[in-house]
């Protein structure tokens, strides 16, 4: 009887191949991100848009690692959190097989300025992203619990729609030049991608995942709702502010983003204060560092907008936001969540469920943590000082860290 019941529990999980194909791909794209950054080291500090290795690196991180991780996590965690299963599994496979090769082709097109690759890759990637958004929206539509997380999910999915439309317009504009201001559209696309999609999704998922990992009491929803309102306002102000270059609206958008981030960080502080688990492990060193980098990135943005003499301030802001906050946070969560999911999926021959600690290869994670931190410091310093050697050295160290992280991922997957 109990064995039957337990197999029922396993049936409520998606096949392990679904989330882990996304997580494995995210680990590989993480390696490719640092390689592309190494190739584009000479152009990074003064990057001002346009195709090339830097643009490819940005999308290897945002699409290849961030979105890929978000998809794997959302497909696996959202149905259980909302208690609304996916209707079918096949759309997740379709999404993956559109999105993963699409991202490879698209970023190849960005690096080489190949219109054919940009077009094919752009359409495939957009189709994969929209497939993900539709599947997630269907789950959110049926969800009756976790209203705060669900509301974050809706804003993130609306942002996916906006960023995808803008992405396709930007690709076709490279060939035809029909957009009145390509750079303004690109900046708006980035605000929807980095803040509207990934940022808001990270905020929403954190309200469940962080208390779950830290064993905290449920977080007071009022501050979470306030943060969400300011996230939405930040996006609402940022769109005309960036498209039409209206400075006062840029300040308004940034102020709202600051309040939204402050509300989120306050909630995370509450989770830490009420936690039962005193030893959170190395993953939380990474996660806490990412929160510090979120605050620093927004302060850099504000200082740059106020005209503070920060050399290459806009690029520094972008790097701290993407590699500093989002990449660091997601790698911290991945190193916590992969052994956790593997433990639930594991089907050992001796019938003994493996312990979480047995599924975590700490040595590669330690190497990654050291290399990732060093890479962030070196590349950020290289951007400010415009020294290519620093950026290249940072990217090379980041690459070593990414390989160590992929080794950890491979070791977890091998135990499935």
């Amino acid at each position, binding site marked *: 009887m109990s064995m039957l019941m337990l197999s029922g529990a396993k049936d409520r999980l998606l096949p392990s191949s679904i989330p882990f194909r996304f997580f494995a791909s995210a680990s590989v794209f993480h390696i490719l991100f640092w390689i592309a950054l190494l190739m584009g080291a000479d152009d990074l500090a003064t990057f001002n848009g346009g195709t090339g290795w830097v643009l490819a690196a940005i999308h290897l991180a945002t699409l290849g690692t961030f979105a890929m991780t978000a998809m794997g996590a959302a497909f696996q965690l959202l149905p259980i959190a909302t208690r609304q299963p996916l209707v079918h599994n096949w759309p997740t496979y379709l999404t993956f097989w559109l999105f993963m090769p699409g991202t490879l082709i698209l970023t190849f097109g960005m690096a080489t300025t190949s219109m054919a690759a940009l077009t094919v890759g752009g359409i495939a990637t957009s189709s994969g992203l929209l497939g993900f958004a539709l599947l997630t929206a269907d789950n959110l539509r049926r969800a009756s619990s976790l209203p705060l997380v669900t509301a974050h999910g809706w804003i993130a999915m609306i942002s996916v729609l906006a960023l995808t439309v803008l992405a396709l317009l930007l690709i076709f504009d490279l060939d035809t030049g029909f957009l009145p201001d390509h750079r303004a559209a690109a900046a708006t696309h980035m605000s929807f991608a980095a803040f509207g999609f990934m940022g808001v999704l990270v905020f929403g998922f954190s309200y469940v995942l962080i208390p*779950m990992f830290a*064993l905290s009491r449920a977080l007071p929803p009022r501050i979470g709702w306030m943060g969400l309102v300011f996230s939405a306002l930040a996006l609402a102000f940022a769109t005309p502010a960036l498209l039409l270059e209206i400075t006062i609206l840029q300040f308004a958008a940034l102020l709202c983003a600051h309040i939204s981030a402050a509300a989120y960080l306050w909630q995370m502080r509450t989770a830490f204060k009420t936690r039962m688990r005193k030893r959170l492990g190395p993953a939380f060193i990474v996660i806490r560092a990412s929160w510090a980098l979120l605050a620093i990135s927004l302060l850099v943005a504000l200082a740059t907008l106020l005209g503070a003499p920060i050399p290459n301030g806009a690029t520094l802001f972008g790097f701290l936001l993407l590699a500093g906050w989002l990449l660091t946070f997601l790698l911290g969560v991945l190193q916590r969540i992969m052994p956790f999911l593997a433990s639930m999926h594991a089907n050992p021959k001796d019938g003994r469920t493996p*312990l*979480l600690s047995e599924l975590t290869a700490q040595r590669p994670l330690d190497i990654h943590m050291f290399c990732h931190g060093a890479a962030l410091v070196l590349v950020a310093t290289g951007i400010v000082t415009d020294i290519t050697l620093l950026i290249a050295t940072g990217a090379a160290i980041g690459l070593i860290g990414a390989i160590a992280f992929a080794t950890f991922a491979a070791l977890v997957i091998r135990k499935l």
Partner: protein
Amino acid sequence: MTEEPPGKYWRDDGILHIDVRGLGPPEPMVAILFHIEKPEEVGPVIVHHFCEPIYFYPELTEMGWSYEIIPGEPEEVRLILRQKT
């Protein structure tokens, strides 16, 4: 954490019962861990849940507890937790 745990709990024939129905995530897990982390709590412990807490199983295993689903009321998933020897 010294405050009262979320959920309801009582003892019946010396066995601790924890009722986490109606709690939002992650409070069911917090409530159960609050009790079973106490050194004097050696089990067995009966948990009254609204769904099967599959995300909790790795944590329980790590802590040296086994779990088994036993018959309960309709709309209830009842688990018995035992400390592994």
